[in-house]
């Protein structure tokens, strides 16, 4: 392994770039959907009717306790048997989103449960409806409380998107595999892609902390959290 052997890898930069774009797209879309759905599930599992609560619990437990690889195989290879055929990218997005939703639901629920009871009470004694109280009053501080945990989970989703190569989604590790099997520069290709993932993870983390401050919970003094 020397520098010149990396050249073969860098020769394939257009496919690496394509893979990078696909990885980023998979991550961003499923992160967004997963967080939104996770929030709704968290609300449902705390406030919804009993049947809904049990359903959400079962859903969350199932998807948190089975490997992601199995989930993605099931959605891609198994659902067609039930008449639902998804193309690889859609299947990957669905799998990532469903998986993330389960985790996000748990994380957000923890944040909501840590909300002082007084916040609900203050909101309802002002006459806010439960949904208004939830989205205007309870949620933003809950998000702030759990944003670090959420960030870690979203980074895990970024890394898990590598497994989408298994259903022929042309994302970053798929392209790395392609380069590896074309040029037999396995190690060089993996090192390069590993470093790209590391860079992506660091960037994504920074971006999330910015997004959190800017859009999700606003920039308010933390000490106010009682």
């Amino acid at each position, binding site marked *: 392994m020397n520098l010149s052997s990396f050249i073969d890898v860098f020769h394939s930069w257009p496919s690496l770039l394509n893979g990078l774009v696909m990885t980023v797209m998979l991550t961003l879309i499923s992160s967004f959907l997963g967080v939104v759905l996770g929030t709704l599930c968290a609300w449902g599992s705390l406030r919804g009717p009993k049947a809904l609560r049990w359903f959400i619990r079962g859903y969350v437990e199932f998807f948190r306790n089975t490997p992601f690889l199995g989930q993605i195989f099931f959605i891609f290879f198994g659902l*067609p048997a039930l008449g639902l*055929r998804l193309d690889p990218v859609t299947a990957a997005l669905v799998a990532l989103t469903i998986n993330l939703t389960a985790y996000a639901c748990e994380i957000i629920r923890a944040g909501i449960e840590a909300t002082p009871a007084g916040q609900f009470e203050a909101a309802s004694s002002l006459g806010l409806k439960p949904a208004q109280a939830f989205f205007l009053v309870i949620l933003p501080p809950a998000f702030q409380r759990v944003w670090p945990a959420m960030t870690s989970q979203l980074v895990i989703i970024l890394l898990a998107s590598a497994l989408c190569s298994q259903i022929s989604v042309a994302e970053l590790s*798929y392209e790395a*595999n392609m380069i590896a*099997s074309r040029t*037999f520069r396995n190690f060089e290709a993996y090192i390069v892609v590993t470093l790209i993932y590391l860079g992506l993870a660091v960037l994504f983390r920074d971006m999330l902390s910015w997004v959190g401050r800017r859009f999700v919970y606003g920039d308010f003094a933390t000490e106010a959290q009682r």
Partner: protein
Amino acid sequence: DALDDIIARKTIRVAVPTDYPPFGSVGADMQPRGMDIDVANLIGEKLGVKVELVPVTAPNRVAYLQSGKTDLTISSLGKTEERAKVIDFSIAYSPFFDAVFGKKEPAVKDYADLSGKSISVTRGSMQDKELEDLAPKAVVKRFEDNNSTIAAFMSGQVEMFASGTPVAAAIKRRNPDLDLELKIVLANAPCYVGVVKGEQKLLDKVNAIIREAKASGEIDRLSVKWLGAPAGELPE
């Protein structure tokens, strides 16, 4: 030198597939079995050493050899220029035709008919490369192992799949009702034993063993057992 090491160690490490019937799969006892496994055992027997089978998949079988994790790879490996740069090849031990398979419809008369068709293929296999050269307009979906390639076809995610004739025959035998036929042959790509690059003594020894087995009819016997037909003429 590799051959001396093998003799000294009294074991030879051979990369074999476990996801590629009839060349390699497992029985109900989870032990590997198939054409490739028998060839490995044959070579071990002739060398007078124990055989250590290392299960591999199509994409990483060359990597195992390259990084010295195994001495040989016997996993229905076809010969290509690129591969020849990083490993050595013995003489062929088994016939193998790469082809595209699919349902009766639509008909495929030449490679141009594959344009726009979605075809699943195992990444890093010969068929992958051949499809790219012969039918550049086909929509190729690459999967990690043979199982996924086939499953993609069976579940209707792709219209066709590219694989070897023996593989398709095995599927057909398992699922007689399956609507499956050979659409077009991609190449005649007999299987070779892969040997660590630059180990001439080992390579010569393996070649000698295979030649002898061909002459004695042993190869044909294995071919009939696993592939359903004699091996016939194989390139040196």
